[in-house]
């Protein structure tokens, strides 16, 4: 069973929930930029959450299904049709052999996910199929999908009952991104901290899966722009010499030398995966207990969806 890319999107890659346990070798996790959408998409087709799927960015692919299967599209809504007939996001759908799914430009956020029952079949490297574009590893030849690529699917044995219906969808509001204090919070004075939260930042076109460059209020450190290189958490807000923040994302370097003012809370990371160049948003400070509560609530939400898959 397989599918074929008839027309490649802007930057489509194979992703699961990331390559864990290799940071000490300089290899960051990578994985789905909006992991919440990937997890739910997999539940909608009856896959375990960590099953490889196609992540599409800004413009999707045109895909021919060589075999019948059961699929779901999650994440941001994109222009889409199945054999020129309407197709619904966030819903499990049967496709027949020979049908063509055409996914055009986004109608809202940066990314959508195509999940296929039984999963996509690509080689695992260090226990993950996730593509790490910066180092050319994982996925299909470490690269974005190209016209003519053929991907086998449906090899998983531990498929479950697909999730039928979702009552509460995850929020698609990306205008507020919550952060906790970063490791070098005390490198910034009150005035600069206030400036950071006061006005909106805009996503620069130089953003990618490694990091999002932000444009807006410059932030100055009172202790310089270089720390002794230390580990980089996912979602760290680094402040380089020019004062324009850089948000470290799924393909981040494992260590870094810029001071980190703040860190996106884990419950809001999926929203970062939906931010696209030109989008504006504001940071909001959260205390650690609040961040942890939001994380556990999100996990409980996923758990409640999983309970419906029985």
């Amino acid at each position, binding site marked *: 069973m397989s599918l074929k890319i008839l027309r490649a999107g802007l930057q489509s890659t194979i992703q699961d929930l990331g390559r864990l346990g290799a940071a000490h070798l*300089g290899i960051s996790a990578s994985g789905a930029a909006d992991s919440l959408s990937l997890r739910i998409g997999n539940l909608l087709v009856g896959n375990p959450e960590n099953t490889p799927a196609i992540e599409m960015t800004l413009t999707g692919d045109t895909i021919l299904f060589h075999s019948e299967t059961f699929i779901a599209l999650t994440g941001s809504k994109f222009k889409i049709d199945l054999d020129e007939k309407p197709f619904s996001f966030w819903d499990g759908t049967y496709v027949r052999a020979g049908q063509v799914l055409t996914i055009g430009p986004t109608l809202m956020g940066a990314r959508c996910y195509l999940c296929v029952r039984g999963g996509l079949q690509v080689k695992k490297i260090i226990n993950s199929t996730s593509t790490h574009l910066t180092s050319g590893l994982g996925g299909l030849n470490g690269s974005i999908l190209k016209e003519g690529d053929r991907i086998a699917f449906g090899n998983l044995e531990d498929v479950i009952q697909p999730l039928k219906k979702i009552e509460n969808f995850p929020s698609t509001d990306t205008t507020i991104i919550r952060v906790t204090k970063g490791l070098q919070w005390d490198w910034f004075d009150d005035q600069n901290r206030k400036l950071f939260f006061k006005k909106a930042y805009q996503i620069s076109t130089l953003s990618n899966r490694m990091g999002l460059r932000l444009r807006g209020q410059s932030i100055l450190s009172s202790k310089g722009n270089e720390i002794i290189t*230390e*580990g980089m958490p996912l979602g760290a807000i680094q402040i380089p010499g020019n004062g324009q923040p850089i948000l470290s994302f799924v393909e981040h370097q494992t260590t870094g030398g810029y001071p980190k003012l703040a*860190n996106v809370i884990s419950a809001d990371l999926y929203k970062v995966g939906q931010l696209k160049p030109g989008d504006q948003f504001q940071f909001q400070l959260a205390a650690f207990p609040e961040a942890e509560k939001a994380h556990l609530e999100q996990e409980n939400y996923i758990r409640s969806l999983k309970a419906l898959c029985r």
Partner: protein
Amino acid sequence: MTLNNIPQFIPASDRSILVKFGEEISDKIHQQVFTFYRFVLKKQIKGVINIHPAYASILFTLERNVELNKTLTTIKRSWKASTQTRIPKPRQVEIPVLYGGEFGEDMDRVSGHTGLNRGEIIQRHESGSYKVYFTGFSPGFPYIAGLDPSLSTPRLTTPRKQVPAGAVGIAGEQTGIYPLASPGGWNLIGQTPLKIFDWTHPLDLRVKMGDHIKFISISKEDFDRLKENVT
């Protein structure tokens, strides 16, 4: 054990904790980082999914669903247990390098900056005693300490779009090897024919944290004979 050897345990995000051993780059701090690193590699900490060692700290990334404070306590306990362990004798790793010419395009730049001639640069680079403080930044990239300060040369003002895998360079007071072809702003003085990082065996690093390194100048004939293709 003296009091000032107790590291700080700091939440870095709601899914990560930094264990910080000090504020300096030194062999003494490196030994403390390395001791704990070796311990947690062998005895995995429950709830931890990634370990990022660096000069003076280790960042631990946490699994979903585990509690931050509970894991912080577990990490503390693990650190206490680790202080009883000893570090084995470091591995001695020899890295053959073909210096200069087309394999070390910035030799003249380093020469101009340091006032040393090609032979002196090679001799001083070869005779250094080097240590890998950690692997970080990008796949397999070793942070190497021990460059002769007289060889210190600032980074290129415009980084190269592509530096070949195995390139040996100098950036400020650091020397290093590019494990994979990548963009880079280091002054290139040579190239090793050895494969430093291999995607088919990503867990088997040629150069690891804690290793002692010796660079050995080789001829073009040796280089061709020893050449390992990087895939």
